[in-house]
């Protein structure tokens, strides 16, 4: 995405593009384009009759400017987006966005690059889309992440605060992610927490699914507004269903067939990973239907339980990843809730048995019988 050599890039912010011509130039047939539009209407949970509308809207698309900021991250979301095996229609659709700033892929560097960003904020206030990847540290004045001498929070306040909308790419930008895991040495938070006034749409995941980013942008291009979201700010079309409820291994769960040990018969047969600590029952994401790597695979499909990477504070709350329940605070890692419970029940039984023996041999208790009152 974001080829900087496009000759139209110095034009006005909203520019008419001939998508059909662009697609033809890149050898994408009309049929492939229509297939993409149908897939997008499915991803957005729209009826199939929307496919022609999406095609028409994309044909007549105005060209919004996009800036991509990277803060405390591993660039994994950028990688997920760039490393697609073949140039897909999705990428070309993303190409029609004018990506004016992206540290990883832009040709410009240093002050020249920062000037490009400042120009977008100055000239297209309230019109551009900001994509943020990575968490924002707040501790000690935000010194733990600086770009061009400015702190991440300072940049985010300016860029996200003046954007039409901010899309957070990945869990770090959405909720702080791994940098925010306990003890959170840098005081990392997500964009919404760092810039409460910004319009933020969260696309968590580690990495985010590039299809969901495309679909969010297509939604914006087709309808001119952002998709409906849940209480965590995630679009409902992608995060409205639990992984567990769409999982290909769900029949094994309902039947009662579980992997009980890594590599056992059940594991080899593809049984349910619930017992191995799969967090599918507490994670909202469309992984089972969208999948990763050109829809070839996803964690549960590969025999590993879900770790709940699209949920807030997943590193702290979903661990241990290979156990159903978290560790009970104050007890050792090997002590499960059931061991503690069984110990509690046994101790109760023993204590009352002892009390009973003493009571049984105890004479001289004064019992008057209940008085009427």
């Amino acid at each position: 995405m974001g080829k900087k050599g496009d000759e139209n890039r110095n034009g006005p912010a909203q520019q008419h593009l001939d998508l059909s011509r662009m697609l033809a130039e890149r050898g994408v047939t009309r049929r492939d384009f229509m297939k993409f539009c149908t897939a997008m209407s499915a991803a957005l949970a729209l009826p199939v009759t929307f496919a022609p509308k999406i095609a028409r809207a994309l044909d007549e698309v105005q060209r919004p400017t996009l800036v991509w900021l990277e803060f405390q991250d591993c660039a994994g979301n950028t990688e997920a987006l760039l490393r697609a095996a073949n140039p897909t229609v999705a990428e070309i659709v993303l190409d029609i966005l004018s990506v004016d700033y992206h540290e990883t892929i832009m040709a410009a560097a240093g002050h020249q690059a920062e000037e490009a960003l400042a120009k977008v904020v100055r000239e297209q206030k309230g019109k551009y889309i900001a994509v943020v990847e990575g968490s924002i540290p707040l501790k000690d004045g935000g010194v733990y992440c600086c770009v061009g001498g400015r702190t991440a929070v300072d940049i985010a306040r300016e860029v996200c605060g003046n954007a039409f909308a901010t899309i957070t790419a990945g869990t770090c930008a959405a909720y702080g992610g791994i940098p925010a895991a306990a003890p959170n040495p840098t005081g990392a938070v997500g964009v919404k927490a760092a810039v409460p006034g910004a319009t933020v749409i969260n696309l968590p995941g580690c990495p985010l699914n590039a299809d969901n980013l495309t679909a969010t942008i297509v939604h914006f291009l087709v309808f001119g507004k952002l998709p409906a979201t849940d209480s965590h700010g995630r679009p409902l079309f992608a995060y409205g269903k639990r992984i567990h409820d769409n999982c290909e291994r769900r029949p094994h769960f309902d039947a009662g067939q579980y992997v009980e040990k890594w590599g056992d018969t059940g594991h080899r047969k593809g049984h349910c990973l619930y017992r191995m600590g799969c967090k599918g029952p507490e994670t909202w994401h469309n992984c089972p239907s969208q999948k990763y790597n050109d829809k070839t695979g996803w964690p549960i499909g590969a025999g590993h339980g879900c770790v709940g990477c699209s949920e807030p504070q997943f590193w702290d709350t979903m661990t241990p990843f290979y156990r159903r329940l978290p560790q009970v605070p104050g007890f050792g890692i090997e002590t499960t809730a059931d061991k503690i419970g069984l110990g509690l029940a046994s101790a109760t039984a023993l204590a009352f048995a002892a009390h009973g023996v003493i009571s049984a041999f105890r004479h001289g208790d004064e019992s008057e019988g209940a008085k009427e009152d």
Partner: protein
Amino acid sequence: MAKPCLYEKYIWEVPVRVSHWLNFFSIIILSVTGIFIGAARTVALEPSQFVMGWVRFVHFVTAYVFSVSVLARIYWMFMGNKYAGWREFLPFLYRDGRRDMLEALKYYTFIGRKVPNPAGHNAMAGTAYLAVFLLYLVMMATGFALYAEHATGSFLHRLTGWQFVLFSNQGIRLTHHLVMWLLIGFAIHHIYSAWLMDVKERGGVMSSIFSGYKAVKAKE
């Protein structure tokens, strides 16, 4: 000294006894199915079977029965007789109640010899049941919140979803699991205390939960 004249007094009304036994059976069924749901083992040979499905179905239906029973009992705290009333569970709010609690505690800890002899609940028992009712409410809130997760945005999800703002999803699961063990611990204590009081009070407390009557000394 002539034995005081005892007579049968109607203490536990029908709703109290029905709710008690519904809770009894519900807690057993919910614990057994709940332990299986929490620590599932392979029990099916074919994916076309529906063992976990049925276990969960039984758990959910029983959860509704249990909730109706608990809510009905709470309603009866305001509508029933004084032995069913909410004051029985809050003895520490008034002077006599606090004295009775101390007496009962003394007896339980072998310090005093005077057996608590109330017509209804003794003050310590009433306080314990307050804690148990609170645990019931915790179980209902966390249980229905986890159950509603399958239907995002549903009425039940909106009714219980506030918990996910305050606590982590896994924390709610752990709470639902640990409170079960607390209730099992309570059940052990409860059966023991009922036996102890049946022996020591000689008021027929054990059979009173079946019949509703206790042997009570008539007022002189």
